[in-house]
């Protein structure tokens, strides 16, 4: 504890998790487009830019570049997982799940069930998500709500480097397929103290990142920081928000949310995805079903609008939730419960 604490970016934390899990378990393999980078070129290898960068130096037989064949290589991850490997496949942008969705929906997620438990599918599918990089409608989606809908698939969306590392380790060690959402603005934008040793954070366990008694704010991924910023603003007005980061969306730690709502009686869910059939309405609906009597006022969801992501920076900046919108939602739920009480 007297040692200087080491700060890593989200991207570096993921890289370290991959390297440590590969070192610990020879069945872990990593592949995707340019996961090494430069294969088949005149120059030297090693031009990956993302979390897989440099892994091939340490594990030359365990990292592969793939052609642009997501259906084949994600499907190969399923087949490999069912026969002894623990593949970590890279989708690049989660939007590209579109071209290999059958492999996720019908093969990876269902195999164990369809064969009566006689196979397991320990694979991880890594995917970049979120708005903020001016990438337009086909490179900026959230989509985790869709994957949460799929039984058999686990869905993880860390909000900071220390969680990213521990959750990636758990995802790789897990015997079920996991889709791992890495927010593109966090790669370099989120930095934190990360232990050097190998560790895991259990899938399905939420974290209370700020305690408070007046309102429960559940926020996902990059939105956790926005929720914390909103909580600071609210605190200045004497409103104490409890902020919960679910970290895993499936399985979901409903108990953590219920416990908090029992204390605060108010719920705001902050979700960067589109609103319909989203994790926001999922949490809202579950609370309305299972903790209705704990609620003193209407739940509030703060999401992106029901529209594709626009390219124009001006429009894109107005698209996702932010601290200001969260503050407004909290105030409106407080006002509603006050008017109910009076």
């Amino acid at each position, binding site marked *: 504890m007297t040692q200087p604490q080491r700060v890593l970016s989200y991207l570096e934390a993921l890289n370290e998790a991959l390297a440590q899990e590969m070192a610990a378990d020879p069945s872990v393999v990593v592949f995707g487009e340019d996961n090494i980078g430069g294969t088949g070129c005149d120059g030297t290898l090693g031009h990956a830019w993302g979390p897989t960068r440099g892994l091939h130096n340490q594990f030359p037989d365990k990292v592969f570049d793939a*052609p642009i064949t997501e259906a084949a290589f994600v499907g*190969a991850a399923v087949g490999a997982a069912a026969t002894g490997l623990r593949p970590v496949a890279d989708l690049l942008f989660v939007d590209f799940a579109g071209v290999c969705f059958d492999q996720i929906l019908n093969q990876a997620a269902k*195999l164990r069930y369809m064969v009566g438990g006689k196979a397991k599918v320990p694979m991880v599918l890594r995917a970049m998500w979120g708005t903020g990089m001016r990438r337009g409608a086909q490179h900026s989606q959230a989509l985790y709500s869709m994957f949460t809908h799929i039984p058999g698939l686990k869905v993880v969306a860390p909000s900071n480097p220390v969680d990213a590392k521990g959750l990636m380790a758990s995802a790789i060690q897990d015997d079920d397929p996991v889709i791992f959402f890495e927010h593109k603005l966090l790669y370099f934008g989120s930095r934190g103290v990360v232990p050097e040793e190998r560790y895991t954070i259990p899938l399905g366990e939420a974290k209370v990142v700020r305690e408070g008694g007046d309102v429960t704010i559940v926020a996902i991924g990059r939105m956790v920081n926005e929720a914390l910023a909103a909580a600071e603003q609210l605190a200045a007005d004497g409103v104490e928000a409890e902020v919960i980061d679910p970290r895993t969306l499936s399985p979901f730690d409903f108990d953590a949310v219920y416990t908090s709502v029992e204390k605060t009686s108010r719920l705001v869910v902050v979700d960067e995805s589109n609103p319909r059939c989203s994790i926001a309405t999922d949490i809202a609906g579950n609370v309305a079903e299972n903790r209705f009597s704990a609620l003193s006022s209407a739940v509030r969801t703060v999401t992106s609008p029901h529209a594709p992501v626009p390219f124009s920076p001006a429009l894109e900046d107005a698209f996702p939730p932010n601290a200001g919108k969260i503050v407004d939602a909290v105030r409106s739920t407080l006002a509603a419960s006050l008017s109910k009480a009076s």
Partner: protein
Amino acid sequence: MATESAGSLGREELIEAYRVMRTIRAFEERVHTEFASGELPGAVHLYAGQEAVAAGVCGALVEGDYIASTHRGHGHAIAKGCDIGAMMRELYGKAGGSCNGKGGSMHIADFERGMLGANGVAAGGAPLACGSALSAKVLGKSHVSVAFVGDGAANQGSFSESLNLATVWQLPVVFVVEDNFYAQATGTRYHLRGLDVARRAEAFGMPAVTVDGTDYFAVRDAAATAVERARSGGGPSLVECKAGRFFGHMEGFDQQGYRGAGEVDRLRAEQDCLVKFVTAAGLSTSETADVDVTVDAAVEVAVAEAKAAPSPELTELLTDVYVSY
């Protein structure tokens, strides 16, 4: 036609090959009857007519090798050594089925036998076989993987991508295209423009051959060459086998009006792989009769046991999946 394996296979191997094909035939003919009587549930696609493909290919495999199958998967499973009792229970959706009743005909699997599963999605098995081939390659094992794919499914993007991935990664995989001339009611003359899928594989950079899928020896030789290539590090190959199906696309669904008059009768009369095999192998009537009796009895037992077996417990609804809400 004298082929390599016809000469090199011993008597026991020939009888074993016959037993496999005869088991598939008996299984499928019986399933057809059972389905017609209304007792057998599900989407059932029969393999009768194509037995020499499954038997010839799996005959070239050894234990530890993998196969990834199609929606028309009973023949592949039987040829890979799956238990027909467990298979029949699976078809009936009963406890003790290959997948404990949760999969059905379209998902029959037996990982211990290297059978990675039938698949409800066209060409669904091709990427999976690339994956099991990758496992063997990374883990330093000599196992070969086979992906069975229908003529119609060969048009799926995931199949072309698998051809590409297999060549780029030089995977120990063999793609076996079963051209039975139809995808549902659509003819290959239309959906493949009458062209061999083998040409595509070559364009992706792998060796490919086309053989008569009703000729066990031709299939087996082609498969053996491809399997040996894969096993010795020579990368992927494709074997295209032409053999018509005796039944409709799916039980209870298909009146086969799209087939030419007398087409099925001609197939059965002239292209029966079992008949051809017995002649080519020179099996005696007593040799085949011994097999026939045993096989028919086994199928009878399988059906009786499947009918008598209990359904899975209702608690099974929520097992084999990580969590329920």
